[in-house]
């Protein structure tokens, strides 16, 4: 969410007066307190024709091929430079649908809140959710709120699921990948993960590293309008980073992938933070980023178009699909050496020195 939007939301949406400063177990009981929380907060903020019916589920009209996706969001801390868990929860599912070639339309929204969460924090998360929905042009049509005892959660967990109709020109399928396809990343890698890491670990840099969380559906939709079936595959490299996604794709196909370290776009500060902590940016999480496998014939034009768009200005061609070394991802290092890129056995742990 842009700062301007944040300020606008806060001015327009003063928090209603509630009897409690914090979320209590009662707010998840289904009784009066739950209703009060919903009436004074959730429904007001997220109001739309579907949600306002307040039925057990939403009544939707849908035709044709749809994509359906779900994701759960646990972020610590829930507020970080460049966003909060609310935006990530909306953008995450929106982007999962977008990389299916779908135009996300309706989302469900479920909270699991830890007792004691400040009402002001919950309010801020709700505002971020609304703003992210407006920007992505999606509606929250059904939802749920549960509260767990203190110590049994981490402030707030959010699940969103979403549906959207497949773009008429989209044909996204791993089976479409072919030799010579160019692999294009839409922006700087490792930004979100290092933003979270730097605040979690109290690392001081000259300027704050802001998360790249954003919706990608409009950007992808424009590219699909223009390039249609020439876009063979889209993926969002969130957890596990770019390396993990590419390795997964290579493993499930009959092709190999050549990757070029010198082409990987990375913000200088993010790169330094990775160096400092001994982390490989290829494995660090991203949020507002997608990887495209496109037909070689359109690769340059696709890259130019993507670079014209706000969310693709740092885009780069980072690799090629090859028939040599099937199922392997081979990276050409900055000095011209070669190495294999594998998945990590677990999460990356900062090294000693």
């Amino acid at each position, binding site marked *: 969410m842009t700062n301007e939007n944040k300020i606008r939301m806060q001015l327009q949406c003063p928090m209603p007066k509630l009897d409690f400063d914090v979320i209590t177990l009662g707010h998840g009981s289904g009784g009066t307190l739950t209703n009060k929380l919903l009436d004074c907060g959730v429904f007001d903020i997220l109001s739309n024709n579907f949600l306002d019916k307040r039925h057990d589920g939403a009544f939707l009209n849908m035709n044709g091929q749809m994509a359906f996706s779900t994701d759960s969001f646990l972020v610590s801390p829930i507020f970080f430079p460049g966003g909060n868990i609310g935006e990530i929860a909306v953008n995450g599912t929106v982007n999962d649908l977008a990389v299916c070639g779908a135009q996300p339309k309706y989302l469900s929204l479920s909270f699991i809140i830890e007792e004691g969460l400040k009402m002001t924090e919950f309010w801020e998360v709700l505002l971020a959710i609304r703003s992210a929905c407006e920007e992505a042009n999606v509606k929250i049509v059904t939802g749920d709120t549960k509260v767990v005892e203190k110590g049994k959660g981490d402030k707030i967990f959010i699940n969103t699921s979403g549906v959207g109709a497949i773009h008429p020109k989209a044909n996204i399928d791993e089976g479409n990948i072919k030799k010579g396809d160019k692999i294009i990343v839409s922006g700087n890698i490792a930004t979100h993960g290092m933003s979270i890491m730097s605040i979690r670990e109290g690392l001081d840099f000259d300027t704050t590293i802001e998360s790249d969380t954003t919706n990608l559906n409009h950007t992808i939709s424009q590219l699909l309008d223009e390039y249609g079936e020439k876009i063979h595959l889209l993926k969002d490299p969130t957890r596990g980073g770019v390396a993990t996604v590419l390795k997964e794709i290579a493993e499930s196909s009959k092709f190999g992938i050549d990757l070029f370290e010198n082409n990987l776009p990375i913000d200088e500060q993010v790169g330094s933070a990775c160096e400092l902590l*001994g982390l490989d940016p290829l494995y660090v999480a991203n949020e507002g980023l997608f990887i495209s496998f496109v037909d070689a014939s359109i690769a340059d034009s696709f890259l130019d178009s993507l670079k014209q768009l706000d969310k693709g200005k740092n885009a780069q061609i980072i690799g090629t699909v090859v028939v040599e070394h099937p199922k392997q991802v081979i990276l050409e290092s900055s*000095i011209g050496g070669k190495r294999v890129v594998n998945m990590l056995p677990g999460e990356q742990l900062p090294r000693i020195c």
Partner: protein
Amino acid sequence: MKEYRDPQLAKKYLDEIKRTVTQDWTIMEVCGGQTHSLVKNGIIEMLPEQITMIHGPGCPVCVTPLNLIDKAIYLALVKNVILCSFGDMLRVPGSRMNLLEAKAKGADIRVLYSPLEAIKIAEENPEQDIVFFAVGFETTAPANALSVIHAHRKGLSNYSILASHVLVPPAMKAVINDEENQIDGFLAAGHVCTIMGNAEYYPLSEQHGVPIVVTGFEPLDVLQGILMVLRQLEADKTGVENQYSRIVKEEGNPEAQKMIFEVFEVKDQMWRGIGEIPDSGFALKDKYQAFDAAKKYNVEIEEAPEHPDCISGQIMKGIKKPYECSQFGKKCKPTNPLGAPMVSSEGACAAYYHFSGLAEK
């Protein structure tokens, strides 16, 4: 950073290495960071066949004694201390579990970047005992020493360190003295020399007739270091040179040394996989005994045997390559390491595994 990763310069160094080499040479890079750089940048395959790189014992988590890991786990699980540790220590196998598993079983284990953060935790939690798992080479010793000095000044009785400090020059000496050693020259660990200086390497080089080049970690550093060792070898010279002079001063960092020797004294030290090496570790001086977690909690844990199939000692002494181990990539993988070098990104086995064709299925 890009200037140390320039492909044109790399090619120049490689061409020069190829022009210079006339016979087979074996060079050990002492530090795990250099091993990581060699493998990550694909340098080993780019070198001429005559040059064999072998990977030294310079991975601090790899050489931390098994028994000490068991002690750390015991302190965290049974004594309910808040155990603070550097990140890559968490996956190193103890005899029954690692610290990550202990954490999953309810131990309060926190990943920190500096022991000074542990001091802050100790101040904020006066009711709880905080133990910092002070592992590392000479590079981490000043900060660990400083944490003890701070705790002493502030009268923090709830802070102590479980120390396993290892020193590089005695380990190099032990490696040279090993009967099976075939090392012709060394890349010494640049970061260690930023603290301790280069003085200890002169007698080592002279007595054993080996070239030693103090080397950095970027790909061009490593290539230049190799070239410098090679030039000495081909000219039948032995001496100490400093490739990493942009960072390493001849005398090191006297302030940091002062801090270290205020708190620590040199002692014999057990190296996992290698055994005891004389004068190769740091122990807390008498004045600071109160901050020695091993003594404070008087933990006695039976010495457990290493996994019988693990040949990590031979790997860290450079006698064998990871792929020469019968269990490499079979029973022993990063998800199920039989020995410590399969854990840290700087461990030779993990580096070979991760950047080789052996994908984790």
